[in-house]
């Protein structure tokens, strides 16, 4: 594997970059969900002030609040995992740079330390692949969460439609106010759907790079 050290390092660098994009993506999702949560709070407070006959607003607002609360918890978890993935990929990058330096020493000749140097390189390579496996596990975990968030975003979008329909049948003042809230929720729902699509693409890309990296591992063990 050390014969392909440069392409191995390039692959680790790619993994690092994509993992960082993943982390940023989870932060964006979290941000959007926080916005939805704020909107749901606003609509909840406002709906509690409407007349008794128009309590449908209140029910829809409660459902928006419930959905956004669930999403918020999931997004916090996904953001936490995103950070873990990013940190693991940074560790891989650090290790690959260290391997390069030790490998350079081996090329210069390490005499009586050759066996130790080779053993150390193997140990460090194994640590990289261990982290790659951990990244894989965490990515699987986030895929499930991302799916749930996408479902909640769909539901949110439906609730926003309901809210706008109710608003259209109510008085002028309430129509404008709740239509605006409905529009904001619908827009956030759309944004979330887009973000989830983007996230899924990143996860796929990350998976591809991981698979390529793992082919080095196979090569290495085969050579050993």
């Amino acid at each position, binding site marked *: 594997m050390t014969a392909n050290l440069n392409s191995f390092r390039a692959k680790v660098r790619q993994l690092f970059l994509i993992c960082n994009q993943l982390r940023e993506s989870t932060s964006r999702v979290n941000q959007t969900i926080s916005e939805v949560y704020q909107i749901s709070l606003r609509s909840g407070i406002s709906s509690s002030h409407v007349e008794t006959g128009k309590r449908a607003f209140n029910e829809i607002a409660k459902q928006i609040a419930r959905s956004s609360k669930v999403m918020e918890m999931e997004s916090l978890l996904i953001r936490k995992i995103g950070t873990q993935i990013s940190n693991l990929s940074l560790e891989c990058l650090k290790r690959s740079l260290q391997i390069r330096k*030790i490998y350079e020493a081996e090329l*210069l*000749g390490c005499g009586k330390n*050759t066996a130790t140097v080779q053993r*150390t390189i193997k140990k460090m390579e194994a640590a990289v692949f261990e982290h790659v496996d951990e990244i894989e596990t965490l990515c699987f975990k986030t895929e499930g969460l991302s799916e749930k968030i996408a479902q909640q975003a769909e539901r949110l979008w439906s609730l926003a439609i309901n809210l706008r329909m109710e608003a259209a049948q109510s008085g002028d003042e309430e129509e404008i106010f709740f239509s605006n809230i409905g529009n904001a929720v619908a827009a956030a729902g759309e944004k979330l759907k887009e973000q989830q699509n983007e996230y899924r693409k990143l996860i796929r890309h990350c998976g591809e790079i991981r698979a390529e990296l793992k082919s080095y591992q196979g090569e290495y063990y085969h050579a050993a």
Partner: protein
Amino acid sequence: MQHKTLYDDGDTQWIYFGRDPNKAEQVIDTNQFVVIHKGKAFVMDPGGTEIFPSVLSQLSEFVEVHNIEGFLCSHQDPDIMSSLPLWMELAPHAKVYMSWLWKGFVSHFGYEFHENFITVKDEGCTIMLGDHPLQLVPAHFLHSSGNFHLYDAKAKILFSGDVGAALVPDNYDIIVKNFSNHIQYMEGFHRRWMPSNEAKLDWCRRVARLEIDLLCPQHGSIFKGEDVNNFLSWFETLRVGAAA
């Protein structure tokens, strides 16, 4: 990278590594010193990451890395020990001696090995390399606020960190041959880097009590014999910390 045996009495060797011709020109040249006693080694200021491959390769001619018992980090600079995480991968049982001031800072190079860190109190200490004592001599504020040099009473060698350092041209002598001529390469360095006349005089008084045949700085050339005294006299009278 060149190497030179500075002392060898059969049991104990002092070896110098430096003047790496393969080093990138952007990287300041550094001297690394290793004391080997009955097969066990102690490395002073193992150097930066960039020169690690050369140092390891050269060192491998003399010692097996699992026999490295310790490293001295005279202070916290990157050219002193940014290679430390790499060394610790190869010699995970080695102890790393440093001023108590720097433990938390040095951990930024990699905290995985913090259990190997031995923090040294301001007054210094004696390290045993097998049955061979090595004395850590306080050199605080020369130039770092937590700084140690290493003295080997048997070999009469003082590793003096940045004291005595010089920015010399390529292919310059490893041992100073003409002290007067050598001053031009170290005067600016000492004026700028050494911040305290008081600390300097304190160090001069302390070192004057030691019997020194070789004074080995981390940059530049080694002072030998009479040039050790020439250097100490020159340094004592030099006004430092005046660059501002």
